[in-house]
């Protein structure tokens, strides 16, 4: 995972330059990374012991090892594959819509400063609105099912993408625009070969956030008011006092979301590294 040209670093580079690269090199595993792993392992071990010894009643939390076997059973038996697929399909749909629509809206707002002046103050406060409260409206508009859930998730995720697009387009250095003119690029070529790659690190941060919010929106909607999906399965297990299955599903969601977010974050950090100047 080391940076490809780490060893071609200039020998005579100034001190801060060397430090920069060194600090940023995402080497296989940093010291902090090991400690982090240790901390998490210790926390899991403590929970395991506390449950086994009986400090925490099994009716409240089951031991992590039991969660893991439950998760294994869920996957092996295939009882919840449908829920998993339903949720993932909604998340993907919501993320894709939020990213594309958010980019489009962001680009349009960026192009019209007057609109931007009016919309931007609201964008800063938008996320504060408890979007879930409007879920019933979407049921009226899209009916009970994936449509309403995707709509809620898009509503939650789109603003991150709009804001990221605005930031990204703002941060394209003026000098790159001038360079494009000197190289006599046409508007389309300029957009695709200069503006888009220059804004990409910011745009990708938007993508990362949009995916995280899409997960939150989908799972939460399913949990509160739906008849399918992983969120619903957890609520169902809870209401039927099936703790074992509930914890297995929770572990599944936590693992899936962590893996997806970590993967996106790794790409994000790589892209951000380009911007270090």
């Amino acid at each position, binding site marked *: 995972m080391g940076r490809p040209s780490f060893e071609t670093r200039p020998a005579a580079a100034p001190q801060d330059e060397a430090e920069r690269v060194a600090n940023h090199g995402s080497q296989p595993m*940093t*010291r*902090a990374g090991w*400690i*982090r792993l240790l*901390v*998490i392992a210790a926390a899991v071990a403590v929970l395991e012991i506390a449950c086994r010894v009986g400090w925490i009643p099994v*009716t*409240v*939390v089951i031991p992590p090892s039991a969660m893991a076997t439950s998760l294994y059973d869920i996957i092996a038996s295939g009882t919840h594959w449908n829920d998993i697929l339903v949720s993932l399909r909604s998340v993907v749909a919501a993320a894709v819509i939020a990213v594309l629509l958010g980019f489009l809206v962001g680009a349009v707002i960026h192009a019209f400063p*007057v609109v931007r*002046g*009016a*919309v*931007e*103050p*609201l964008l*800063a*406060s938008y*996320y*504060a*609105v*408890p979007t*879930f*409260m*409007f879920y*019933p*409206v979407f049921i*009226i*508009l899209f009916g009970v099912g994936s449509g309403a859930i995707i709509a809620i998730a898009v509503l939650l995720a789109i603003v991150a993408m709009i804001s990221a697009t605005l930031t990204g387009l703002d941060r394209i250095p003026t000098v790159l625009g001038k360079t494009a003119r000197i190289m006599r690029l046409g508007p389309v070529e300029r957009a695709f070969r200069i503006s888009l790659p220059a804004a990409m690190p910011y745009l990708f941060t938007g993508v990362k*956030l949009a995916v*995280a*919010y899409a*997960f*939150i929106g*989908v*799972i*939460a909607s399913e*949990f*509160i*008011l739906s008849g399918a999906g*992983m*969120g619903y399965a*957890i*609520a169902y*297990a*809870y209401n039927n006092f099936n*703790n074992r299955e*509930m914890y297995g*599903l*929770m572990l599944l*969601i*936590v693992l899936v*979301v*962590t893996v997806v*977010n*970590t993967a996106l*974050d790794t790409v994000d950090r790589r892209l951000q590294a380009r911007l270090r100047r």
Partner: protein
Amino acid sequence: MKSAIGSAAVLLVLMLFWQGLHLAVANSSLPSPVTTLVQLVALFGDPDFWKQTSQTAQAFGAAVVLSTVGGIALGVLLGMNRTAGSVSEPILVNLYSLPKVTLYPVVLLVFGLGISARIAFGVMHGMIPLTLFTMNAILQMKPVYRRSAAVMGLSPWQTSVTVVLPAILPEVITGARLGVSLCLLGVLIGEMFAARNGLGYMVMHAMERGDMATVLAVALLLAIFALLVNSALLALDRAWRH
């Protein structure tokens, strides 16, 4: 001033859009803005509404206080030590982007069905951004500030009060802004699931009865409240940032 006019214009457009939806939806099961406002006024005269509001307000208030105090304390603690900071940051970021609603049953199992579960859930939402922002503010504080303080011969206590605190305050307020809105979200989600009181429950209950006007009236009220709180903190944020 100019931006206020712009924002008003945007809100007007949204209202018109709402009205348009009302007209477009078959049988108009979606109440119009006017119907919603009328219902909101009617709710103000309803003692039950005030009972639910006070339930939500209590849970929200307690969650805000707890997550602010806890978040800043934890952030300072983790920010004092570079290793602690870099160990915990990815964990916190991951917790932040986790659909915390999945963990709500655990909260219910631990705290029972009462108000404390909703407070705990609100704190789970609100505390993370505060911790993250406080921690990063301390970690990223320019070293020259501390060095200047040392050169001026300030004691550690004087340094914390006159240098560190003002230096990190803007970031802390940004964190609080996020934290407060998330506290409200947490409390409301808690009320929407497995609760017998609070505005979140009221919305769920009204929805089951098909009383869309009440659903929208309460949702609108909460949205306005959230926007106002956020704008106030945003203004504070800007004032501190100079």
